[in-house]
Each structure stands twice: as structure tokens, then as C-alpha cells.
């Protein structure tokens, strides 16, 4: 078995850009992604869209096809349909491909696992018919399927983007229920002047909102007290807006209020993390080049802190330059010189990101469950009341609470409930989130059949001599 210079997990904008740069620098690279094609979230199926015309998805999406083409032209190994289930700080990657586990060894590892949507645990959020807005987009991009007459509820650019994409395709939308709190506009206003330096982004956002407004679908603003109606499946959404209680009938409700890093990989590797109070999420700690608390492991893109697709590309390239330096293929001076424009660009993007983060800062009432009967852990069906009971029994740590209540023990391994549990414990303990911490995560990153594991034979790690060959 031959050792790689670098293994990259995730073929989104971050992973693809990094792979191209590393390969250009002469490194031997492999990229793994569970998807059948490269692209990641934003460019999902951008190179092979099932849609007759992708213009409805917007120019950002279409730009993805170019990146994917460049990636596919690059001399590297792309393991598609390959799900990494174990990543070790010893440079070992175990991944599943068509029901078999394979093993890779690499000198450097770059984690680009992307983001996931922040759960919105309103009453009824787990009923059939309730999905995330991102799921609407995945269905659209991958299968060209849509849900007619849906209600979209929440806040943030991605929500508006998806509504606009629906409207452009002529899909009827029942309503947009915007939960951005009135106070957020006041809080964000002081950040606007600096954000205006990125006028292009701002214009794009305003145009999107205008586009939705002019489509004439019912829009409700400053919505609060959201609740999905229905016993066994979603029948509608109840909320208050403009001082009135409103009920809208719909069989599909798409919820969204922002994204957060996909934590399981970086957490399972025991990398140092910090709490990001602006984005209300944990993120892996890195330096300007994406290097984590373990030097030979780097992270880039939304999986290392939300920076968006353009930011992910830059971060991917910066990580690649640093890895080339660590591999001895680029001097420190050259690394710094080549990195300067990217670092400057990221810094220039920061004020706009700060503005957006402040404006779409999710309300605590939507981020954390309020109703004792609301499920926090979908896998193990644990409600807010169950967790409170566990806390009262002395489980003050997320892991203790998990051991006591099973919250976070199910197949999603805390992906959904992790941030909620941290937030709840922080409230109950009246201590900052950092003091509360997060779940201790372990491999496998996803369910692995015993059959597959039983057929896995470990290949011994290569010796230095072999690796150098």
C-alpha cells in the first residue's frame, strides 16, 4: 500500500479547490466524497443536472460546473461514493465504497465536510411533511423534484435562495414565514457601513428579496411562536405575526434558520474546538491556513466555520498552500506570498459575513426547544422534559446527560441534538457554552454493517522508506 501526501475528505468547493492546488504543486492527492459526483452542497449535481435548464438555480450554481470540470481534469484520485467512517490522527482513513471498507494512509489530511442546517425544534418539527429547506434544494438539484404548495419558514440567505429558485421554476409556494426578529435589524445596522464595502453581495441579497416580494406570495415578517399543526403528519403552520395568531394550511413545511459546521468528523478526531458566539455554533480551531490543533490535520470550508462557498474556495486554497509547505514542496516565503491575496480576500469578506450573521442571528426561542413535549433527540425520542429530568438527576455534562437519557445515542450520533443540548445545559447551569462542552464522538461516522466490518483486514501502515518511494 502506498502512502498519499494528502487525503481530502469532501469534494465541495473547499475540497475541490484544495485538491487542484495541491495537485498543481506536485502532491499525490486523493479526494473522498460520499456523493456520486463532485460538487458538495452548493454545486450538488451541477456537472450533471437532471434539470433541463439550471438558470433557475442562479449563476453561483452554474459557476460550480466550471470548478467541477477543472477538478475532474486534475490528475488526482477521486474516490466517489466513498464514505469516510474513520479518520485517525495517525493519518489513517477507513472508508466504505460499495459495501467494502478500504484503508488509506496519508501524511497530511484535509477535512472539508461542509455544513448542515441548524435544527429548528418548534413543536411538531419531527412530523412527516416537515423538512429542512436544504432538503428541498437537495431534491431539486439531485432529482429535479419539488413540493408544491409548501410553506417556507425561518430566516437567512439560503432560505430566500431556495424560495426564489422555486418561484423561478414556477412552483407554487403557499407562504414565506420570516422569523428574523425585528431587533436583529437594529442590531445589524451598525455593521452595515462596513458590509457595504462588499456592495455586490449586498445587492445580490436585496435583489433576491425583491424577487420574492414581486412574485406576490404571502409573506409574514417577525413571526414568532411557530408550531407545526397536525397529529400524525403536518397539516399546517401556526405562528404569530403582526400581533395576530395565524394558521396556514400546508402539507409540506420547509424550515431553515442558518447552517452550522458538520461537527462529527472534527469532534471524533478530538481536535480543539471553540464556540462561535456570532454564529451560535462550535467550530474547529484553526490558524489562518486551516491547520488544526493536530499539525498534520487541516480543515477548510464551511466544516471549519461558516464562510460560504466563495470563502470555502479561498480557504481550501490556503490550506493547500500550507500543506504543500509542510510537505516540503513550497518554501514558507512562497507560501506566504501566494497566500496573501486569499487572506486579504477573506478579510474583506468578513464584515459582510458579520453583518449577515448579526441580521440572521437565530432567535433562542427557535434554536432551543421551549415546549416540554418537544422532541430534542429524534433518534431516541427524548423530549425537553426528559432532558430536564436527567439534568435534575445530576447529569450536568452533555455526555452524562446522554448516558442517562440516551439523548444523542441514536444513529445520527448527536448531529441534530448536539447544539441544542449544549445550549440547554448552558441555560440550566447558567454557565457559558464553553464550560458545558459537547458530546465525545467516536467512529464510525455513519452506520457500518457488521458484515462489512467483519470483512475488513487492516493493512499495516507503510514504513517511511515505502512512503518515500
Amino acid at each position: 500500500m502506498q502512502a498519499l501526501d494528502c487525503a481530502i475528505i469532501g469534494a465541495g468547493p473547499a475540497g475541490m479547490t484544495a485538491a487542484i492546488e495541491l495537485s498543481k504543486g506536485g502532491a499525490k492527492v486523493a479526494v473522498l466524497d460520499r456523493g456520486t459526483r463532485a460538487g458538495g452542497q452548493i454545486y450538488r449535481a451541477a456537472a450533471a443536472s437532471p434539470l433541463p435548464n439550471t438558470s433557475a438555480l442562479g449563476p453561483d450554481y452554474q459557476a460550480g460546473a466550471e470548478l467541477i470540470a477543472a477538478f475532474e481534469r486534475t490528475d488526482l484520485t477521486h474516490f466517489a461514493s466513498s464514505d469516510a467512517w474513520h479518520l485517525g490522527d495517525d493519518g489513517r482513513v477507513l472508508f466504505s465504497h460499495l459495501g467494502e471498507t478500504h484503508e488509506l494512509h496519508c501524511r497530511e489530511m484535509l477535512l472539508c465536510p461542509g455544513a448542515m442546517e441548524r435544527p429548528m425544534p418548534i413543536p411538531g418539527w419531527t412530523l412527516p411533511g416537515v423538512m429542512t429547506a436544504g432538503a428541498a434544494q437537495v431534491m431539486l438539484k439531485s432529482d429535479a423534484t419539488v413540493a408544491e404548495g409548501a410553506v417556507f419558514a425561518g430566516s437567512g440567505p439560503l432560505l430566500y435562495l431556495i424560495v426564489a429558485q422555486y418561484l423561478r421554476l414556477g412552483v407554487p409556494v403557499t407562504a414565506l414565514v420570516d422569523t428574523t426578529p425585528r431587533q436583529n435589524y437594529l442590531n445589524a445596522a451598525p455593521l452595515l457601513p462596513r458590509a457595504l464595502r462588499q456592495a455586490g453581495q449586498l445587492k445580490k441579497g436585496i435583489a433576491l428579496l425583491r424577487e420574492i416580494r414581486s412574485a406576490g406570495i404571502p409573506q409574514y415578517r417577525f413571526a414568532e411562536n411557530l408550531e407545526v399543526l397536525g397529529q400524525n403528519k403536518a397539516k399546517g403552520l401556526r405562528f404569530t405575526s403582526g400581533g395576530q395568531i395565524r394558521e396556514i394550511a400546508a402539507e409540506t413545511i420547509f424550515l431553515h434558520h442558518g447552517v452550522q459546521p458538520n461537527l462529527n468528523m472534527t469532534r471524533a478526531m478530538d481536535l480543539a474546538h471553540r464556540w462561535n458566539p456570532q454564529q451560535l455554533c462550535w467550530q474547529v480551531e484553526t490558524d489562518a491556513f486551516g491547520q488544526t490543533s493536530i499539525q498534520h490535520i487541516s480543515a477548510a470550508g464551511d466544516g471549519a466555520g461558516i464562510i460560504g462557498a466563495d470563502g470555502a474556495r479561498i480557504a481550501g486554497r490556503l490550506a493547500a498552500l500550507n500543506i504543500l509547505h509542510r510537505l516540503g514542496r513550497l518554501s514558507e516565503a512562497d507560501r506566504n506570498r501566494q497566500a496573501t491575496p486569499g487572506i486579504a480576500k477573506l478579510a474583506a469578506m468578513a464584515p459582510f459575513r458579520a453583518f449577515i450573521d448579526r441580521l440572521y442571528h437565530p432567535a433562542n426561542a427557535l434554536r432551543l426547544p421551549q415546549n416540554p413535549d418537544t422532541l430534542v433527540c429524534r433518534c431516541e425520542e427524548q423530549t425537553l422534559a426528559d432532558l430536564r429530568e436527567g439534568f435534575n438527576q445530576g447529569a450536568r455534562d452533555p455526555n452524562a446527560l446522554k448516558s442517562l437519557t440516551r439523548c444523542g445515542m441514536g444513529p445520527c450520533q448527536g448531529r441534530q441534538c448536539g447544539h441544542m443540548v449544549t445550549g440547554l445545559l448552558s441555560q440550566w447551569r447558567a454557565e457559558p457554552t464553553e464550560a458545558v462542552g459537547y458530546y465525545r464522538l467516536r467512529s464510525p461516522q455513519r452506520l457500518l454493517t457488521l458484515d462489512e466490518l467483519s470483512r475488513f483486514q487492516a493493512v499495516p501502515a507503510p514504513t517511511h522508506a515505502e512512503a518515500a518511494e
Partner: protein
Amino acid sequence: MKGDVLVIGGGIQGCATAYHLARQGASVILLEKDYAGRHASGVNAGGVRLLGRDMAEVPLSKASMEMWQTLDEELGHETGFRRQSVINIAADLTDMTTLRAREERMQAAGFTHERILSRAELLDRLPHVNPDCAGGAISEQDGYAIPYKSTSAFRLAAERHRAKVVEGEELLSLRRVGPAWLAQGHKNRYEAETVVNCAGAWADHIALMIGDNVPLSHAAPMLMITARMPHFAAPVVGAVSRQLSFKQFKNGTVLIGGGAKGFADRANNRTRLDYAKLASAARTTVEFFPIMRRASINRMWAGLEAYMPDNLPVIGPAANADRAFHAFGFSAHGFQMGPIVGQVMADLVLGGQSRFNLTPFRINRYDRKIL
């Protein structure tokens, strides 16, 4: 902070000791460097097993087993205990010979809780077992419990009797001054007449502070748990000579052990897994239970456990100090013993003796007279 007894370690041994002491009126302070149940006692396989115990342990283990049956009522909190037979599978005739020899020794000692199963009886109780197996041994009063819940139940019951459990407090040093033990934690100082060392995989450090040397080692046995699957095995399953052990819980998840060990990084409170060994445990499992091929592993982990060279715990007074006691080194089967160990320790601390023969468990059993 002052108390009669200072217990080091908030695993099941420490919490049970604190409970039995506090229940009898002693003022107890328990120090736990992480949180109670963070280590072996909260993450083990939950096996409450009498089957296959070392002869020296059988009396304690039997007494503990009786306590488990009514522990929830006694403590006023759920331990998740469920009575369930445990079967050790004999893969072949050699295993059956081993079992027969054991049966003879057990009967000679007057123990009757284990019984040999014929191949037909085995298949009857475990219809999905590989039919090539030769038979097995069964113990009917055994069962399993939920480790963290059980440890927590002892802790809550101890607190109800006014024991003080201090979490996030690591004992850094200990000295005997006159009639008292002075303890320095990283947050506070403590003083007590008696100290009890229940520090699990770290117990040799505490033993040193007390003045006793002990050949303790530590390791990281690994476990895997599956997602829910249809019920296929009621009894808890082990094997005479193979690394096979699993139990299916009421919710359908299957916990797979087998004794394979990962890497123990005690100084950093961490463990790492050995995936090649887990793969081999998976092979053994599907070889004996082909139905398990379809099972999906949800999580794999390991816990830090203390081992003595003879796989028997240390239970008893310190060799080189007064008013100090040890209970550690349970060698991967101490969860079941928790209830009785707590009582034994309380008896030693409060009355100076135990009704059990503790000679096999004395701390200085490895001391040599001459080099």
C-alpha cells in the same frame, strides 16, 4: 472541607462505598476528577454476571447478585437492571471438557448456580446460534443493567444520605498527619479520618500516595453498539474460549464486546480504538451468529479499566498505612461487584472487618520477601 471518610473516585465502587457509609451515618466526601460515571463504570457493557467467575470471587459476586435484584427499590433510583440468563457458548468439545472440569470444581465448593447445556438445549435458547456449537453453560439469575444509571443511582442515594460528591476535583496529594488524612485537591483541601481508594485505572497513583506499591496495569477494552434490530437473542451471550460476547437490549440494540483491547491513554483521559481487532470481533460474532451480519454498528468506544496480574481486584485495608482502604483493579468485571464492594468497604471502615474472606484480594499479595 472535613469529613469522616474521604472516598477517591466516583465510579460504581466509590459511589457504592459512599452510599453504604453515608447510610450508616458517616459523613462522606467523595472526590471525582471528571464526573461520576465518566470512566469504566459509566461506559462498560453492563453485564451483571455470576457465570464463569473466578472461584475466589464467587462468594462476593453471589452476594452482589442478590443485591442487584432489589437495588432499584433500595436506592430509590433506576439502575436499568433486568434479570436475564447468561450463556457461555462451548464452540467445540474441548470447550465442553473445560466446562465439565469447572462444573466439578464448582460443585465441590458447593456452588450450584451454573449448569451445563447440551447442544440441543443451547439451540433451544439461542435459535440463531451457529448449529456447529457443542453446548454451553448457563447461569439463570444473572442479568444486565445500564452502567451510567446504576452508578448515578448509587451517587444520588449517597447524596440523599448527605454524602458530599465533589465533581471536577482531582486529588493531587495525600498525607497522614497525626490522626487525620490531609488531602489536596486541585480546587480545595480536605481532611478526613479515613481514606478509601476507588480510583479505578488511576488507583496505583492513589495507592502510592497512601504508601502502597501495587502492580496495577490499565487497558482499554472496546465495545460496539448496533442500531435497533429485530429481537433474536434473549440471553446474554459469552463464550468459553472465544472473544465473543454480546447482549441485545429491550430496545433492540445489540452491544458487542469480546474483550478486544484498544489503546489506553490514561494520562490524557483518552482511549483509541484498534479497528483491526474490532474487525476480528465482528468476524467472531457473525461466525457464531450469522443473523448479525445485517446489524449496523452505530458507535464504537473503549473505557479505561484497571487490571491486576491475576485479574482479581484489590479489596481491603492498606498494607502500609492506618485508616486507609482500597477497592480497585476489577479487571473488566467489576461492575457486577459494585453493590457488595460498597458494603464490604463500609464494613471495613466502620467496623474493621468483613464477613467475606478477603485474603485473595489483599494489596500486598505480590510483595516478595526476597529479591
